[in-house]
């Protein structure tokens, strides 16, 4: 009789433990799904509205470069709001190409500019930054492009 009573008690305790464990598991699952939701909404808020119908082109009245050296500190960016790849070319007013970038993905910057030729100290007006834009597909289908006219200020 006493053995039966103790067996029953152990059974009840075991059942309670199992139920508690199940409840804890369910609670943990619910909490993790809420975190995922919060993270997703935060991510969507930080990205903002992404439009595939327009391209944002950064423009500058001028940029400063270092004289008598090909290696520069300037990097050019592709805004994160874009849905296209940039290829940027820097050239002088007479069409001389100074630098061509690799592909720049949205949200990324180019490597520091390395000029094809050194520039002497001075001001170079009506230089151009030519933005060639491409779809982010395998074929890299061309999109509309842009040019920004700017002044290069080359200093020691």
């Amino acid at each position, binding site marked *: 009789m006493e053995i039966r009573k103790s067996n029953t008690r152990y059974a009840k305790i075991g059942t309670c433990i199992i139920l508690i464990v199940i409840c804890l598991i369910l609670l943990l699952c619910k909490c993790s799904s809420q975190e995922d939701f919060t993270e997703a909404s935060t991510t969507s808020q930080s990205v903002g509205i992404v439009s595939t119908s*327009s391209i944002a082109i950064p423009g500058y009245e001028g940029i400063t470069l270092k004289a008598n050296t090909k290696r520069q500190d300037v990097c050019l960016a592709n805004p994160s709001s874009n849905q296209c790849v940039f290829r940027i070319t820097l050239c002088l007013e007479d069409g001389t190409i100074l630098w061509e970038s690799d592909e720049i993905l949205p949200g990324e910057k180019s490597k520091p500019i390395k000029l094809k030729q050194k520039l002497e100290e001075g001001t170079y007006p009506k230089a151009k930054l030519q933005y060639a834009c491409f779809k982010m597909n395998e074929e890299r289908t061309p999109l*509309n492009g842009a040019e920004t006219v700017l002044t290069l200020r080359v200093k020691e």
Partner: protein
Amino acid sequence: MKRSIACALAVMTMASVPMAVYADNVTVLTTTVPDATYTLNIPADQEIAFGTTSKMLGAVTVTESSGFALGKNLKVTVEHTDFVAENVSTTIPYTLKGYMTEGYISPQEYDLSKGLIFYGRSSYDNLGEYPEGEDEMQRHDITNIKFSAKSSDWGRALGGDYHSEITFTAEVVVE
């Protein structure tokens, strides 16, 4: 000889004194004007259906601008190539015009060869409204770029996949 040398030295000494005085009275001021910056937003691309004679391609806008002011503006010109196709001899020409509806009873078309002018405001701030009295056609709020092509040009084009590119050129200009 000695007297000549002495006189010459005296004259040179006298001549250097006014220059020193002049240098002391000169104050040199320096300043650096920051370069203007901006973001030019252009239409990305559009599928133009065969035979389309008129279609809106999207607006050209300028955002996140700084360093502009009254008299310091941004001029945007628009150039395009005709539709061409690989290994096809025909091309399909078309025109682009600015198309405005805001503030007008009937829509207004604007010749893009003049360029779009985005005017600086009186504060050293973002680009804004055009000055009073200026040509109203040169506004910052061109609502759309309008594509127009002739049906006859579509008709005489040989079959193929055609493409065209539009290039927008922006330059900071002063009046």
